[in-house]
């Protein structure tokens, strides 16, 4: 359904927004003690870029995504979308979480329609919902309830629910983390194709080095908590990429080295 997009050259339509992460620090209060999670994180993202955020488990990557989404405000620093400070959630920055978190009382169609309904524009824009469901190849399941879907299908619905809003920044919080490896490989290709077609800026948190290298223009490697940027690596390889690419293998070795795992490779 989306495979044909693979052959197209990389184009960055002006849909994506730029994102500036300026000296962001954040901490949580846990039982009276302060737990720092982000320490002066500073980087910029160009419109339409695909950034992967890699780092040890629990280092604060997902917290950074929540800040970008506007679900929480940082303790210090500023986030800017196209130069404007982020002050709260807005449908131009949509998150796909690790769990699909579909609303079990809504059908696939109504789940995908959620954003348009919340913004009060569903009545005039119903065809966008159909288009988003078609885009992820689930038109046969539009009247199914979430408990009738497989894990991969549910995550596709979650993707459609995000894409129907035509986000400028798509925030992916380990969206493929809980899927089986075959579904994961299929959906990685689908995500690349959608990104190329739509041109949104993408932020992906992942634990999977290979996934980061297969998908992203840039891989930002974080340290242990509190997260600091350890390396910012450009992945200058054309799409579609191949998992056996020797240059990607070299990058992978470097990154695993940064994460202290090179002995296993």
């Amino acid at each position, binding site marked *: 359904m989306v495979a044909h997009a693979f052959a197209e050259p990389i184009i960055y339509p002006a849909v994506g927004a730029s994102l500036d992460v300026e000296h962001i620090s954040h901490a949580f209060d846990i039982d009276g003690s302060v737990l720092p999670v982000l320490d002066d994180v500073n980087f910029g993202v160009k419109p339409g870029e695909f950034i992967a955020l890699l780092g040890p488990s629990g280092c604060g990557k997902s917290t950074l995504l929540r800040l970008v989404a506007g679900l929480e405000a940082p303790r210090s620093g500023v986030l800017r979308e196209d130069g404007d400070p982020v002050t709260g959630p807005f*449908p131009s920055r949509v998150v796909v979480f690790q769990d699909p*978190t579909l*609303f*079990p*009382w809504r059908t696939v169609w109504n789940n995908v329609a959620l954003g348009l309904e*919340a913004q009060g524009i569903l009545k005039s824009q119903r065809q966008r919902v159909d288009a988003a469901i078609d885009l992820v190849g689930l038109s046969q399941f539009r009247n199914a*309830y979430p408990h009738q879907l497989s894990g991969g299908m549910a995550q596709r619905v979650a993707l459609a629910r995000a894409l129907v809003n035509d986000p400028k920044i798509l925030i992916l919080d380990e969206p493929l983390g809980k899927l089986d490896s075959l579904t994961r490989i299929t959906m990685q290709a689908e995500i690349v194709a959608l990104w190329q077609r739509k041109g949104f800026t993408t932020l992906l948190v992942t634990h999977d080095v290979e996934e980061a290298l297969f998908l992203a223009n840039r891989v930002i490697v974080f340290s242990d908590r509190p997260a600091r940027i350890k390396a910012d690596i450009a992945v200058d390889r054309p799409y579609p990429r191949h998992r056996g690419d020797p240059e990607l293998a070299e990058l992978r070795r470097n990154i695993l080295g940064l994460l202290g795992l090179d002995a296993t490779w």
Partner: protein
Amino acid sequence: MSMYSASRTVAFPQSAEEGAALEGHSLSLPASIRAGGVGVFASVMWVGFGLSCLLWPDLGDWSRTHELAVAAFIIAGGVLAATASGKLLGRFGRGLQQRAPWLLVLGLFLSLWEVATAKFAWLPLPFFPPPQAIIEVYTDDLPKLLESVFASVKLQLGGYAIGAAVGFLTGVSIGWSRSVGYWVHPVLRFIGPLPATAWLPFAFFTFPSSWSASTFLIALATGFPVTVLTWSGVASVSNAYYDVARTLGARPSFLVLKVAIPAALPHVFVGLFMGLGSSFAVLVVAEMIGVKAGLGWYLQWAQGWAAYSNMYAALLVMSLLCSSAITLLFRTRDRLLVWQKGVVKW
């Protein structure tokens, strides 16, 4: 005999199985008769019930014995006819076939009841009236009974609707707003667990009419479980749902109406179910003590006059009404919660 059968290895159990299978087979030969077999027996049993009414003279003075026997014969004929033409009747025929064992047992029960009361008085009269005495109540005292039913339904509906609505709104407010919770929660903890019937004396001298007092009590009995369950439903909604909705541009009103409430609905229905049960109890007590109408009052009145058949007749009606109310609630729930897996069928 099986020792010499063709299969010698495990001859004995196998032959037993074969025997059973054969027996089953011979029974199933005319398939329609086997399928209708229980129906035929049920029909016979109802004929038996009719005969039990006619064979012996009544020990008491009941005017409907003859009609009851005729009705039993008509039912027997109906069951037989429906069994014979089962295929033609479609869904009704299948439903009847499924319930045939129950019809059979019911016929047996009625026959025993008839013989044990009206004919030989094995059970002491007047505490155990025969079926015809109860039929007599339905035919001769119908207006008063209907009036009581109407009064009860009216009282119950009003009180339940008020209690459910107030309980639901209170529950959502406590679950959603910390400050509402701060003020309402202690009051709820203090007043809620008190059985609503404990308020009876207070309600009957405070409220202007016994009707408003009873409505208040029924609403109270309904409201407490509905409030608590709605509250816990709203409180247990996963934050992830709110996060998703917020990133998609949802305002607070959307979060309450389209996220919190639908997610809490399964809990709300448990509360509505519990509230229905306790409100029935309050309804009957209120009618027995204060209200001068309704089935509770009818029961009390019948007991006072030692009109035991009226009491049983009213009990039967009451049980039908309560059961229908619960059926209606469960149907509504099934309709609203189709998205849930494995809900209990009432």
